[in-house]
């Protein structure tokens, strides 16, 4: 998929299109593949613009309204561009009891942004999220695909330094 612009609407490559058809064939109703295909689109594009949503809808015979309703329902779909790395700190009960507030305050200070924002250089977006179900490692956060547990301010600094 090429990045969306006014002149070239997003489209999948032929290989991606055959992957779409394979995913659709796994479900009794091809629409079951909507979430996986949106995940694929977001991985390629970084986020799901309205044009991208429209395009994905067209592959399923689904209205833009249906796709939009789905995209906005789930926290892991983004309509706007995000940083190259996503840092999601858990703020639920066990992490709260282990000092999640301090970890969040430290991250805000180090990154110079508030929760929900992206650094000016586009490196990191910061979120605070509900239980990621790794409470045995509280306080914890997710950095892109990875769970990082037993956080301290020093460990957070090391993890941030490793992000390009």
């Amino acid at each position: 998929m090429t990045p969306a612009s006014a002149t070239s609407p997003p489209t999948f490559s032929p290989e991606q299109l055959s992957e779409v058809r394979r995913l659709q064939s796994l479900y009794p109703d091809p629409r079951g593949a909507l979430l996986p295909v949106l995940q694929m689109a977001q991985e390629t594009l970084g986020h799901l613009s309205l044009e991208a949503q429209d395009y994905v809808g067209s592959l399923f015979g689904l209205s833009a309204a249906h796709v939009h309703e789905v995209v906005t329902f789930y926290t892991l779909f983004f309509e706007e561009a995000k940083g190259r790395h996503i840092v999601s700190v858990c703020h639920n009960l066990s992490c709260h009891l282990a000092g999640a507030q301090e970890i969040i305050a430290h991250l805000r200070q180090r990154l110079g942004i508030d929760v929900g924002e992206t650094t000016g250089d586009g490196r990191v977006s910061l979120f605070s999220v509900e239980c990621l179900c790794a409470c045995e490692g509280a306080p914890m956060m997710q950095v892109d695909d990875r769970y990082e547990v037993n956080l301290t301010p020093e460990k957070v600094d090391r993890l941030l330094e490793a992000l390009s």
Partner: protein
Amino acid sequence: MTDEKILTRNFDRPDSHTLEVYRETGGYAALAKAQAMEPAAIVDEVKKSNLRGLGGAGFPTGMKWSFIPKDHPGPVYLVVNADEGEPGTFKDRYILERDPHALIEGMAITARAIRSPLGFVYIRGEYVEPWRRFTQAVREAHDAGYLGRGFDIVVHRGAGAYICGEETGLISSLEGKKGWPKVKPPFPAIKGAFGKPTIVNNVETLACVPHIVNRGAAWFAGLGTKTQGGTRMYSVSGRVKRPAVYEAPVSVTLRQLIEDYAGGVSGTGRLKAVVPGGSSAAILTADQIDVTMDVDGLKAAGSMIGSAGVIVMDESVSIPEALLVVARFYAHESCGQCTPCRESTGWIYKMVHRLVEGHGRKDDLDTIVDVAKRGAGTTICAFYDGAVGPYISYIEKFRSEFEALVKK
């Protein structure tokens, strides 16, 4: 009480997630045994084992399976709930990562019992590594011929929404929609995924099934209480010395879990309160921990075992602040379909917030309890009842702590 580890027995073996290690420890013997059994006999065995659902509701598993219509002409589906999201719970992740073949074998046996050609495993979107591990295991099982001969598995990833853990919300999501729960009846066993009869079971529930087939219903039932068989995985976190997943018979007491398994209370060392079954369970006070951790034991204590996520709070913890964290969660995760749930979770969060900030009003406490009680039982799904449990119990059991905030 047995100390034997059953569900977690392979967790510490190197490469426990591989087919090779699973086979070395007796893996897939139960499937071979089940293949020689009539489907009805498998259902019967699971009924007699007293296995009860380990996802939250504690419904008897064999009985659930028997609700699938006998004469149904089309396919029926098996759906595995791996959307683990209940705050304080982290057990299914261990099975997906460290013993994925136990789930696959449990699914294959269950599929035979309910005559299902196709199973879906719905894994929460944040569980990337567990998803990779599980997908790899499905591939291995397929290549080895355990799958693909009358039963196949589709691994499906969620995209971030607690409500997709509710079985009908999960089905909506699996069908490519937003995860809105559906009105019951019809129950999924009659009309579920893609309009077909569907059994939804939790990961851990199905991981019990091979053991029941291998060692017999009487053995499994004998591990637990009169009304619930087996061991289960307790997630213990919060203010304890050794937060971790602990496997124990369902007759273990909360005190044993905290003091013997998890090494005792940390922080001040003095216990104040415990959430026994994930954040949706009513809170217990320090003098209530001699309760047994089975479905009926917790029900008798006015709480619930839910997903068996134990969250421990020592004396230094502010209960109003803990409720604020919990209330924020329910306000954020309500799917918004039902008015009592959508409105109350939002307003109660605001009221707890102003109480904690010191701007609370004297009658706020009664208002919260009153609103919570009125809405309970009126909504499409049990999400709202899961919010009401903490609202009422935190305030009723720790009222003076809340009142102190108002008087300031």
